[in-house]
């Protein structure tokens, strides 16, 4: 039932808005609204019930194992939320003077410094509000760098075919042409293809490492040499930083600009699709172009770095300072982890992934890159199963929902047929992983004995398989009264 269907004309929550009628008004008649606003008229209790019940129709990290590849669904510590929501932090206006926000600015400054240290970059800006915006900002800096050198011929960005869809979309949004390069049979970027692709038109290469195939790009140093020799810059998509945090720094791998998904590696909540937060880090030569605002420390005082300090900056990409509250949560998380905790993230994320890969292989699943170590994630392919039984990766994913597990990422990366990209974050226990393997074995057996039942999954969710085609052909995108 929609919230609108609970609505009754004239029902009103008296405590939630001003009680006395406003004493004056000076809004010209011709600017006053005449149509009704279709917000629901529901009691506070019915509102609380409605949304509490809706929440119960969601899978979440707090309720289910969520082995969603490339998304790093780790536990979101509750302290990060409650301390970021201290009333003084919540009530601070973004344009309040710097001297009324020294406590907040100190957190932001320290977060910048810690992120610099763990990534090996020379500067960090916290403003990007999501991974894709971090990418956009990163590629904008690449363009600004070339143009500042009077080089306007670099019109191409190279992207491996296994990359996230945001990479090519970002390059285009920045006005670049995308050159896709292939992956070899072991999951590495094809070096010969890269060498053939680079040239005077190359602005840069966007790379995720470990890649979305769940393996470390062994040739990263050579790739860096090839791209730099051609005059291009290297962009690091930090989507998979959780796999190497504390082990390898993107700066040491030769990257010139990076983004870090705080909602993955630094455990800020995914929130049902956002807000994200994706600080960018840059090497020395890109420092002049870094987006503002950033926080500077002078003596014991913190202040905003603005256009005046950074005349070559690519500018502002959010109305204020990005997703400030998300940044606070990440800050609290890194302080809770500390130095030791920071090293252990990648160790245990990698241990969990390799263990799960080993156990699933023993259970009879085909691993896409069997001769490689898993990074913090790995790929299972159901190509043979589909050929034999018609059961697809999507069918298996939906059947997992019935067993109380969120599905792994399906059909991404696009180059492995019938794939499941599985990422068990470091916060999951061995028992959880073992129970997941047991369920996967059960499904294998079900595929053999009752494939049609598996094809019809899910069976125990609030709804069965939904009609996507109808949704797109006859779009019903908003409730209308009387409709």
């Amino acid at each position, binding site marked *: 039932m929609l919230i609108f269907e609970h609505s009754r004309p004239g029902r009103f929550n008296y405590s939630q808005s001003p009680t006395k009628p406003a004493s004056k008004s000076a809004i010209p008649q011709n600017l006053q609204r005449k149509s009704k606003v279709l917000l629901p008229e529901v009691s506070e209790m019915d509102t609380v019930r409605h949304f509490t019940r809706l929440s119960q129709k969601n899978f979440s990290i707090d309720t289910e194992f969520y082995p969603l590849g490339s998304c790093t669904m780790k536990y979101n510590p509750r302290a990060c939320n409650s301390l970021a929501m201290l009333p003084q932090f919540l009530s*601070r206006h973004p344009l309040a003077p710097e001297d009324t926000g020294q406590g907040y600015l100190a957190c932001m400054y320290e977060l910048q410094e810690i992120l610099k240290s763990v990534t090996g970059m020379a500067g960090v800006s916290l403003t990007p509000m999501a991974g894709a915006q971090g990418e956009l900002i990163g590629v904008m800096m690449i363009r600004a760098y070339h143009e500042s050198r009077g080089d306007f011929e670099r019109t191409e960005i190279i992207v491996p075919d296994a990359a996230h869809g945001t990479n090519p979309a970002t390059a285009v949004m920045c006005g670049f042409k995308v050159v896709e390069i292939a992956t070899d049979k072991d999951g590495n970027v094809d070096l010969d293809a890269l060498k053939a692709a680079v040239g005077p038109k190359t602005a840069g290469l966007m790379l995720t490492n470990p890649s979305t195939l769940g393996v470390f790009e062994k040739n990263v140093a050579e790739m860096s040499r090839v791209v730099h020799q051609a005059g291009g810059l290297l962009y690091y998509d930090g989507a998979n930083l959780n796999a190497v945090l504390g082990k390898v720094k993107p700066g040491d791998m030769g990257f010139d600009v990076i983004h870090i998904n705080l909602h993955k590696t630094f455990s800020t909540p995914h*929130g049902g699709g956002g807000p994200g937060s994706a600080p960018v880090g840059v090497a020395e030569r890109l420092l002049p172009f870094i987006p503002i605002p950033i926080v500077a420390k002078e003596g014991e005082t913190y202040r905003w770095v603005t256009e005046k300090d950074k005349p070559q900056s690519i500018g*502002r990409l959010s109305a204020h300072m990005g997703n400030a509250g998300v940044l606070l949560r990440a800050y609290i998380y890194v302080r809770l982890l500390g130095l030791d905790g920071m090293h252990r993230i990648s160790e245990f994320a990698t241990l969990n992934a390799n263990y799960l890969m080993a156990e699933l292989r023993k259970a009879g699943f085909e691993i896409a890159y069997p001769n490689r170590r898993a990074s913090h994630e790995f790929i299972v392919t159901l190509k043979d199963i589909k050929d034999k039984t018609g059961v697809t990766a999507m069918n298996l994913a939906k059947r997992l929902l019935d067993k109380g597990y969120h599905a792994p990422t399906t059909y991404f990366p696009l180059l492995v047929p019938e794939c499941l990209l599985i990422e068990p974050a470091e916060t999951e226990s061995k028992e959880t992983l073992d129970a997941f393997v047991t369920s996967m074995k059960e499904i294998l057996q079900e595929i053999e004995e009752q494939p049609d039942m598996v094809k019809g999954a899910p069976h125990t969710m609030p709804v069965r398989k939904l009609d996507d085609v109808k949704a797109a052909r006859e779009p019903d995108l908003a409730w209308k009264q009387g409709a």
Partner: protein
Amino acid sequence: MPFIPHTKEDIAEMLASIGAKTIEELFDEIPKELISGELTGVPPGLSEMEITRLMMARATQDGFYQNFIGAGAYEHHIPAAVWQITTRGEFYSSYTPYQAEASQGTLQLLYEYQSMMASLTGMDVSNASMYDGATALAEAALMAVRSHKTSRRILIPQTVHPVYRQVVRAIVSNQKIEVVELPYCTECGQILPESLVNSNHEDFAALVIPQPNFFGVLEQVDALTDWAHSKNAFAIGVVNPTTLAVLTPPGEWGSKGADIAVGEGQPLGIPLSSGGPYFGFMACKNELVRQMPGRIIGRTTDLDGKEGFVLTLQAREQHIRRSKATSNICTNQGLMVTAATIFMSLVGPEGLRRVAAQSHANTLELVEQLVKFKGVERTFSGPVFHETALTLSKPVADVLNKLKQKGILGGYNLQGQYPELGNTLLVCATETKTESDLRNYATAMQQALG
């Protein structure tokens, strides 16, 4: 180890299953020379008790102020239920609802959000939100250029939030789109439709129309919308959602209505929190929906004919279309929209109208008190909503400093962005201010000017 549950026995058994001796061995595909040594610059870990103490100290250091700053972020009462429900783990720690059957909670909520925003803006459809108001405007500009097909020019009045203009420029310039700024009338604080009629602007894809504008002044939206349409261009409204409970919504501007409406969603239940996370909203006419960026939720049916909700029209998006997508955006501000939807449900149409009306009344009242003083004048003659510009006889920075010493953040200094206005302050009093708050402010201002 923080947030890692493994016992020694677990580690041993897991390594045995993998066939590795140590965890180190699992990193043996990484070239040795790339392995970094000990990290520097990361302090030792804190316990939850220790970090609580640190954060409490920093929060206390920042303290509380009586806030009269608006300028794009507005303080409103947020009912307790809003964030208690929003931070339930099932909303807080869920992912993007790609697995529809396991995400009906988030999907239905987003559909309800889209319905509310479509009605509030008077448009046909809304997406599931953008990063913030500034980027929503930039995306609207890109959308208008994609849809217009012949022109790559956007007209933006200088009465649009200055940072929004900066963000739009930064984003659209990548695609060789020209941004032309339109001057405003320094007496009324508005864009004069007559000045446009007499201008030589012919070839442009869209006109941006703020309501209320950055000065808090109400623009003549009907005439502006009709003028844009007469030039075969789109009209993009940038609106404050609170005010739409009282003001004509963009979908009803002029004879045909604006084509796209965007804005900052923060006033709908999102705390100020130093500028984020907020959310941008975007709504449009049906004809433009396939050019809209971002996530969109649709209502459909399942195998049994039961109602359900899915992400739809995904052929626009980057994870399907890659380089041919309408935008590179992947996220919506899901959790913020969750809060906004609960907020709008709790206050309802009457509550939102009261919030808007009281904020308007408080600002009028404050201004009436202030302009009685020598040295305070209304900067503009145009009608205002819940924010207004005042010209002071003394430097604004000095006045604001004096107010700050009394615990009052007195407003936003317009001089930095609009030097032509001289000593001008932008002040906002929402429904959160009581009569005595307004009197205190007035008294403090009188003393500061004294």
